[in-house]
């Protein structure tokens, strides 16, 4: 017996869903498992690279999916669901940064992201870690969403909550700085 049958229509009594939205819980267990399998690794990579803290990325990935399942999200298929998931994760990261920290995220060692033995790294990947470390968190976010995930400026604006018009300028500056750092081996 499920709890919905014990407490009938409880969810129906919650805040009414927005037009064109559906509860993620409408996704059944198997649909969710498939969606999770397709999206979880890229979400984790985003969180881990932007926060530079794999343990935090673990926590926030789980929390993002739980919130996703509890929320109403746009009925525009998997692409929109994925974007919504990134938006939740971005908000969680922002909340995390706003909280008083016991230690700075800049203290997290980058060797956590090092490849296991036997794998090779190109020069650009090897230089990426020190270059990313010198970028501001927001710039890391923008760069990752634009160039690793391939989101458009409009989509990045939806995910980050920044004005669409300012994304272009912010990305331009971040990209120029990042390219300089990559060419100089992470030296500012």
């Amino acid at each position, binding site marked *: 017996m499920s709890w919905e049958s014990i407490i009938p229509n409880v969810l129906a009594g*919650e805040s009414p869903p927005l037009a064109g939205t559906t509860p993620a819980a409408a996704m059944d267990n198997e649909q969710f498992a498939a969606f999770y399998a397709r999206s979880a690794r890229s979400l984790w990579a985003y969180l881990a690279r932007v926060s530079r803290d794999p343990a935090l990325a673990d926590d926030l990935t*789980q929390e993002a999916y*739980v919130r996703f399942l509890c929320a109403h999200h746009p009925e525009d298929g998997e692409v929109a669901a994925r974007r919504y998931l990134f938006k939740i994760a971005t908000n969680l990261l922002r909340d995390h940064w706003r909280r008083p920290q016991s230690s700075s995220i800049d203290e997290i060692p980058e060797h956590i992201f090092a490849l296991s033995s036997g794998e090779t790294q190109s020069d650009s990947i090897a*230089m990426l870690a020190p270059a990313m470390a010198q970028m501001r968190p927001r710039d890391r976010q923008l760069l990752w969403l634009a160039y690793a995930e391939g989101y458009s400026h409009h989509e990045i604006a939806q995910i980050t909550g920044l004005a669409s018009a300012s994304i272009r300028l912010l990305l331009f500056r971040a990209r120029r700085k*990042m390219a300089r750092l990559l060419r100089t081996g992470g030296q500012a």
Partner: protein
Amino acid sequence: MSLFTCAREREVTDLLHKGHWPQACSEELRAHVASCRGCSDLVLITESLQASRRQTAELPRLEPAGAIWWRAQLRRRNAAIDQMSRPIIGAQIFALAMSVIVIGAIAIWQADNWSAWFADLPTTLHLDALIPSSSPESGILWIIVPVLATIALLSGIVVYLASEKQ
């Protein structure tokens, strides 16, 4: 060409995201990228970040989807129960406040009767036999008040323990 971007940036971006760079593009475009700062920055960063994404995505040991599904169900259930019990708690607080007000009003209104009833209580309960004849008349209150207070305290504890078990 705008202030921030090269006119061919979109073309280069498409090629990068489709995985067609650099093999499946013209010699002329490669020459352009080599000479254009914006496009070469774009290629450098996109290739680095995409490689990093592929590498990083292999690292996590993800929690099973079923566990996350279960946690979400649990959270939704708790939120639903919280939402349902909110009006009940409000009604309980309101009922308690009204009871206190009514009892207080009756106590004030019937103050004279209460004092008379308290004065007669030892006689009604035949407590006179327990009190030494030498003790003053008001001494009886020193027995009744602690007894009533103890009963009230014990009742409170019983109610608290019963509600905790639920």
